[in-house]
């Protein structure tokens, strides 16, 4: 139920970063901090590049 509410709210954003690759990071992952950071950075950079090309 909470997941459904969240989806609704996520759709209200003008821009959403939601890197699905994060799924690969488990709680046991010792390199989790770096991995997640880079996944977020690359995902957002890509999306922002696309956006600046469009406008």
């Amino acid at each position, binding site marked *: 139920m909470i997941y459904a509410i969240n989806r609704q709210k996520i759709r209200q954003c003008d821009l959403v*970063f939601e890197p699905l690759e994060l799924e690969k990071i488990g709680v046991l992952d010792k390199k989790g*901090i770096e991995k997640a950071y880079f996944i977020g950075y690359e995902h*957002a950079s890509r999306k922002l590049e696309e956006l600046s090309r469009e406008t």
Partner: protein
Amino acid sequence: MNLKSESVGLVLSGGGVRGMAHIGVIRALEEHAVSAKIVSGSSVGALVGALYANGTSVADMLSFFKETPLFKYNFFTIMKPGLVDTERYFEVFQRYFPEYFEELKRELYVVATNMQKGEEEFFSSGELVRPLLASAALPPVFSPLEINNCFYADGGIMNNFPLEPLKNKVDYIIGSNVSVIKQVEKKTLIRRYSSQIERLH
């Protein structure tokens, strides 16, 4: 209404170590000269949001999470008896954050779960560190935190994507959601569980 608007709001979800992706998102935003005026966060998103609101550099944000053993609550520690005492983090947090919300450079909203009422509650003024700790106090690992005679726990329990405070306050809302769920096949699920169990032996 656009990205370079003067009035951008940023929502940061909960999601444990995956929340480090928020820091990467912030770096990308900074490189594209996008700056948020208001930030709202839940759990790990509240912590990253507070660092961002405080003007902390991306490098220092990463050091904060490396130095603060927040994500060491892996499978094995859960198996040990006892909870992590959330109060123990108080001193470390005081080194990175100012005392009050009002001292931050950006407007910040932090959501935590009021355990007695079973409701979400937003914090945006007054004392900063306790609401931050409460927002990231995920049971059963972290003990709930007492604020004004009420016990609070992880904001993600009731509100993992706290967009509400930004409504009608900004022209452009950016969301970073790290609680991603992909469809998983049954076979994969079984394989994952059995490998986790093997690691315990």
